């Protein structure tokens, strides 16, 4: 009897220890059969990346699996807001148990995640890949980390500008086509629309923390890089933490909301903001001007989230002017996304095979037709079918004066500071002048006293 009890006790302990060990030790990549599983992680929240998903599911994966019968390619999208995506993937990439085999990285995170040791350098691999020479030179810089190595294959790039509704402009008596020459002319147009068409939102721009990088890049930087002082001084390699441009940028944002030229805060400050603006308000003719990227056309295509065939007749895409029309007159920020292989991936070679396959000229072209982003390959840009995609001519022209985000590993942290300060300004918690002061203090804290200058 006693013996049984002892055995029972020991097995109880052993069992519970084993159980607790089993909780964390799920093998990442076996699914019963002997197929090699390749997992791809990207963001699917807020109706984003619909074209990308379609492209993978209908074209790339079936073909790749036919050529490689021993491989099973699986999608593991993250249904989160843009702001949460990067924290999620950073956590996933940290562990061998959760890291996917391919991850889509916004190029501004490549440097930071590479410095953290999350990504595999691809230099050896691109060296033997004949297609690599077809990639545009300055796009390649976007996937190069501070150590000079390549950490991803860029699959799209973009440009930003002012979407405007020609019908509403005509109704309000504004000129069409519209080409504002300064920030003031944008405000002027918005004021006229507010006066003439009271039930239309005159001007929309990302303004909150929930829209994440969209607030930094599509709003703040589109304005700031139109002043004389960008975020980062590339000559001295220092952050510009005090300048008239910073204050003026916050002032412009403040003016939009103070004069009620912008949307309701409850609409614009949440993660669904982009969908509300470009899938609902714009197609319904309830939004006159929107500062955003070329990819929004993806919403209005046949396979988009809000098909709107007349979009390309009704809408114009105007370049963003510099503050007072200073040379070169217009600017755009340019970013883009890349396919990277995590350091903790179990199938790096197969993942690379897949990236090569998906990035061929023909596949790139088909992706961009679906998701309506600009190409990273010179040979695709020459294709007639690419040049004929609506609005791509305008968007590509903007790239002449394109600016890029600082390729420094502190950028993501500075960017989140920008987002929360912009939200503080639009909710009138602080004035534009206070925001500029806060910016100086917070950014100095992040990058260190030695890495900042005032202008």
């Amino acid at each position, binding site marked *: 009897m006693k013996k049984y009890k002892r055995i029972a006790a020991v097995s109880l302990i052993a069992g519970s220890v084993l159980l607790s060990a089993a909780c964390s030790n799920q093998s990442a990549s076996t699914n019963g059969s002997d197929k090699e599983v390749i997992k791809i992680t990207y963001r699917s929240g807020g109706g984003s990346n619909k074209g990308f998903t379609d492209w993978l599911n209908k074209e790339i994966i079936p073909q790749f699996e036919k050529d490689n019968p021993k491989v099973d390619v699986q999608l593991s999208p993250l249904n989160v807001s843009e702001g949460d995506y990067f924290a999620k993937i*950073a956590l996933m990439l940290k562990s061998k148990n959760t890291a996917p085999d391919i991850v889509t990285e916004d190029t501004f995170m490549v440097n930071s995640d590479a410095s953290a040791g999350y990504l595999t350098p691809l230099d050896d691999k691109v060296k033997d890949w004949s297609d690599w020479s077809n990639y545009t030179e300055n796009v390649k810089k976007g996937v190069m980390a501070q150590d000079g190595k390549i950490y991803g294959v860029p699959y799209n790039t973009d440009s930003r500008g002012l979407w405007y509704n020609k019908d509403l402009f005509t109704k309000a008596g504004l000129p069409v086509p519209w080409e504002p020459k300064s920030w003031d002319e944008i405000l002027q147009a918005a004021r006229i629309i507010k006066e003439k068409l009271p039930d239309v939102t005159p001007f929309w721009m990302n303004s909150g923390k929930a829209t994440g990088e969209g607030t930094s890049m599509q709003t703040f930087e589109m304005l700031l890089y139109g002043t004389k002082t960008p975020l980062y001084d590339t000559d001295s390699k220092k952050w510009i933490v005090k300048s008239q441009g910073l204050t003026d940028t916050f002032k412009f944002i403040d003016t939009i909301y103070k004069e009620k030229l912008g949307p309701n805060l409850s609409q614009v*400050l949440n993660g669904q903001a982009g969908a509300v603006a470009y899938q609902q308000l714009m197609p319904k003719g309830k939004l006159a001007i929107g500062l955003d990227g070329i990819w929004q056309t993806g919403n209005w295509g046949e396979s988009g989230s809000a098909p709107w065939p007349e979009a390309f007749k009704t809408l114009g895409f105007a370049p963003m002017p510099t503050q007072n029309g200073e040379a070169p007159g217009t600017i755009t920020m340019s970013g883009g996304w890349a396919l990277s292989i995590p350091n903790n991936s179990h199938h790096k070679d197969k993942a690379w095979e897949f990236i090569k396959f998906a990035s061929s000229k023909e596949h790139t072209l088909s992706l961009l037709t679906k998701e309506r982003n600009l190409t990273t390959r010179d040979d695709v840009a020459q294709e007639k079918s690419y040049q004929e995609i609506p609005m791509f001519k305008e968007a590509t022209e903007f790239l002449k004066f394109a600016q890029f985000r600082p390729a420094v590993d502190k950028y993501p942290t500075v960017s989140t500071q920008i987002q929360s300060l912009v939200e503080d300004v639009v909710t009138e918690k602080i004035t534009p002048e206070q925001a500029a002061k806060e910016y100086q203090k917070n950014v100095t804290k992040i990058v260190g006293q030695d890495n900042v200058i005032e202008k």
Partner: protein
Amino acid sequence: MNTNMVVSPTVTIKENTRKDHTLVKSILFLLPAWILLLVFFVGPILLTFYFAFTNLALTGTEAKNVQFIGFQNFLSMFEDPDFRISVVKTIVFLLFSAVIGQQILGFILAVLMKEKNKTFRRIIGIIVLAGWVTPEIVVAFCWVAFLSDNGTLNLLLQHIGLKPVTWLYTFPMVSVVVANIWHGTAFSMLVFQAALDDVPKSVEEAAMMDGASRFQVMFRIVLPMVKGSIVTNMVLVTLQTLGVFTLIFSMTGGGPGTSTQTLPIFMYNQAFVNYQLGYGTAISLILLVIGIGASLIYIRSMKVNL
């Protein structure tokens, strides 16, 4: 087990060895629980203490080279105006939703239900408890559906000819406080019900005979008798409310701006939005200190032994 510990005058050697056996056996049986606690509870707590003094980050070079930076996190925290705002927001949220809202409402409910018809008690009890058993995320969803721009409340307002209000943006703190009261009141009600049932009827009757009014009975007799339960409840409710994250995060995301950014939200933002894990961990320690501090204040000021 306790009965074995009592030393009896007739302890024999045989009984002693049996006692040893029981001890070994009980250790064996408790071991799995201890190991689990050690690995999943004590371990993370110690790690938290360590990380609070490092520059650990989620991405960038600091993710690879973690460095010990002493009290730097705490120094920059006390300089950070957002931190001060968060402390104030936390205290406001705590005071209105837990200490005042849940406690008083819970107490009133308990008093009203005392010695009422059993069916009545049961029905009301179940209704109030529904709020308590609802998971936080569902509570948040219900209240967002009720208060949002096109929500139920605004539809009702429009129906009677009033203008809709953007509740979650115009009154964000009020919204989350009300939601938290709705969610948590049942807990206080249950605690007070049990305490009030323990107050002997004869004491109240005696006081009434001596000419005490109903209010005097309540404040002079009943309240002092349930003081212990009040403090216990206060401590529990405070600790629960200090940790509320899901409700606020899904209703307002801590916004607009920083208007509902309590410490748990601030901590999340620093750790997972600004990628400063070390700093976030330091904030969590401060949260712990506030919890301990508040509990001590209650216990001291009410002069009770828990």
